[in-house]
């Protein structure tokens, strides 16, 4: 094991963490403001990826595709909010889970209908192609670094949005007191649609960026969704800060676990077995971390005041 290899894995972990943050931020915002659990958030991630891949293929430009992914995901989010989600705010969590589960079925099959069952591929834009030399002689893809930078930028943007703008003030008011925000004269229905669309756009952005690393296919959002759940359970539901911290923790723990555990075990048992046991253990690692954190802090590391 060289240091360069470890650095590479650490960066991969950061990149995964950034993706998870984009997903978890939307989920936690939607829960914090509207009290809604949205299983279909992974579908919006998929919508972003498909929109980006399809538009990039048609126009030849990744960047137009990226813009399209934001628009498509936000539009899909707003539409779903108007048609379905707003009927669920007063319902119990069971109804929310079922209705959004139904939305997953509709989104997944609908996408198959439109695009067929074969995966789409999305090329990395030329300007972000290639690799840079990192200390230790490591070649690391520019695109992955760009994702980390984009994620950091979005995190900063969200911070500014929530702490410095009128919209952010309304969001914070909505989180702390749903009745007060009505009294402030804010049109709460519009606010909810905007917050939902914003969360959807973040998920769509994540889907589009990852689409260039993996194949774009139906069902791609679901594993990410469940990891995002782990993230916000760890971070504390409703907390953006918790989502950021949890996302980086999960991203790095998962990636480093898969890298380190088999090597660690190889010190004690034959390599073939070490790979098998280490791999299986690594796949469970973040869930074990989640369980340990919950054992100490049942409401996550940064519990929101009201949740």
């Amino acid at each position, binding site marked *: 094991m060289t240091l360069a290899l470890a650095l590479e894995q650490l960066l991969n972990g950061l990149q995964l963490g950034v993706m998870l943050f984009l997903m978890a931020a939307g989920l936690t915002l939607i*829960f914090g403001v509207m009290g809604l*659990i949205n299983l279909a958030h992974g579908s919006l991630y998929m919508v972003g990826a498909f929109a980006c891949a399809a538009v990039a293929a048609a126009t030849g430009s990744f960047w137009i595709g990226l813009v399209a992914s934001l628009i498509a995901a936000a539009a899909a989010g707003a539409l779903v909010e108007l048609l*379905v989600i707003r*009927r669920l705010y007063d319902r119990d*969590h*069971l*109804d929310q*889970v*079922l*209705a959004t*589960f*139904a*939305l*997953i*079925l*509709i989104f*997944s*099959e*609908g996408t*198959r*209908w439109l695009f067929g069952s074969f995966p789409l591929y999305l090329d990395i834009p030329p300007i972000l192609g290639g690799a840079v030399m990192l200390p230790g002689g490591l070649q690391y893809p520019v695109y992955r670094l760009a994702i980390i930078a984009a994620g950091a930028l979005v995190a900063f943007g969200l911070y500014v949005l929530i702490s410095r703008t009128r919209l952010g003030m309304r969001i914070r008011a909505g989180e702390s007191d749903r009745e007060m925000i009505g009294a402030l004269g804010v049109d709460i229905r519009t606010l909810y649609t905007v917050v939902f669309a914003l969360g959807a756009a973040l998920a769509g952005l994540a889907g589009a960026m990852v689409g260039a690393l993996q194949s774009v296919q139906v069902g791609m959002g*679901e594993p990410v969704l*469940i990891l995002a*759940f*782990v993230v*916000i*359970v760890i971070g504390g*539901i409703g907390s953006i800060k918790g989502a950021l911290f949890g996302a980086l923790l999960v991203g790095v723990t998962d990636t480093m676990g898969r890298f380190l555990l088999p090597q660690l075990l190889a010190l004690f048992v034959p390599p073939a077995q070490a790979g*098998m046991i280490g*791999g*299986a253990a*690594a*796949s*469970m690692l973040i*869930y*074990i971390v*989640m*369980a340990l954190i*919950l*054992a100490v802090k*049942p*409401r996550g590391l940064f519990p929101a005041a009201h949740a």
Partner: protein
Amino acid sequence: MISRENLINLILAALLLAVPLAAYASGEQFYITLATRIAILALAATGLNLALGLGGLVSFGHAAFFGIGGYAAGILATHGFSGDPLLLGLSGTNQMPVIWLVAVLAASFVGLVIGAISLRTSGVYFIMITLAFAQMVYYFAISWPAYGGEDGLSILVRNQFAGINTMRPLNFFLICYVTLLVALGLFSLIRGSRFGSALQAARQNEVRVATVGIAPFRIRLTAFAISAGITGLAGALFADLNRFVSPSMLSWHMSGELIVLIILGGVGRLFGPVAGAMLYVIFEYALGGVTERWQFFLGLILLGVVLFARGGLLGLLAGRAKHG
């Protein structure tokens, strides 16, 4: 005087028995398999109904117990077939009663562990955490190559039950059907018992239950473990039905489907899971015959039920649930 709901329950039970008998008489083996599938899914959902319907515990992780039951059957049968010892010198088996016992105990034990952590929380946390733990079991099954990993595990010959030829579809159906009836009986007893009172009261008003001196956590954890055991038993039967176990039994879609069954049928109703499983399998079969995009329409139907018909089929037919 029999209540309207009980009458409907009787009709549903009779229908589920009559269809495969008629199919047997007319040589349509396929419908027997369909009915067996209904019985097993209903059994799995009956387990979940105990936690979700009576206890209000929205577990999005019951696929874990279903899959653990399935793997218990698959692993025991594999060792029973090859003669390789399992662990601690114990051997495998192809006897269903032993397999069922192991499936129930294993699923209940994991249910106890998952429940002990998850039940410290409530609401959305509980939903997400049960989902996450089930996903953990799923990834473990995928990355552990000894029992097939991603490819799953085949059961070459269906396991044995008391000298009955289980390879004949009708015989196997009857085994599943009787098991389902026993589980429904158990559910009904528990619902009416002191334990059931405490469990249902904890759903309606947790603070009240604590204030009379009953700790809701212990009640819920016990219910969760029993619930997991029943769903695990269904998993073992499902493995024998397909003679195949794979990680898909553990997938979160499976957890979602089990909740959907209960909602379609009627939450907390004795025959809710049966009605739901019938509807679900019939949708799957009827819609699946017309379009390969049947899940799209299932999604629409489900959305309609959640938004506009919350009592499910039994709510529609038998009116609101009654308590003593």
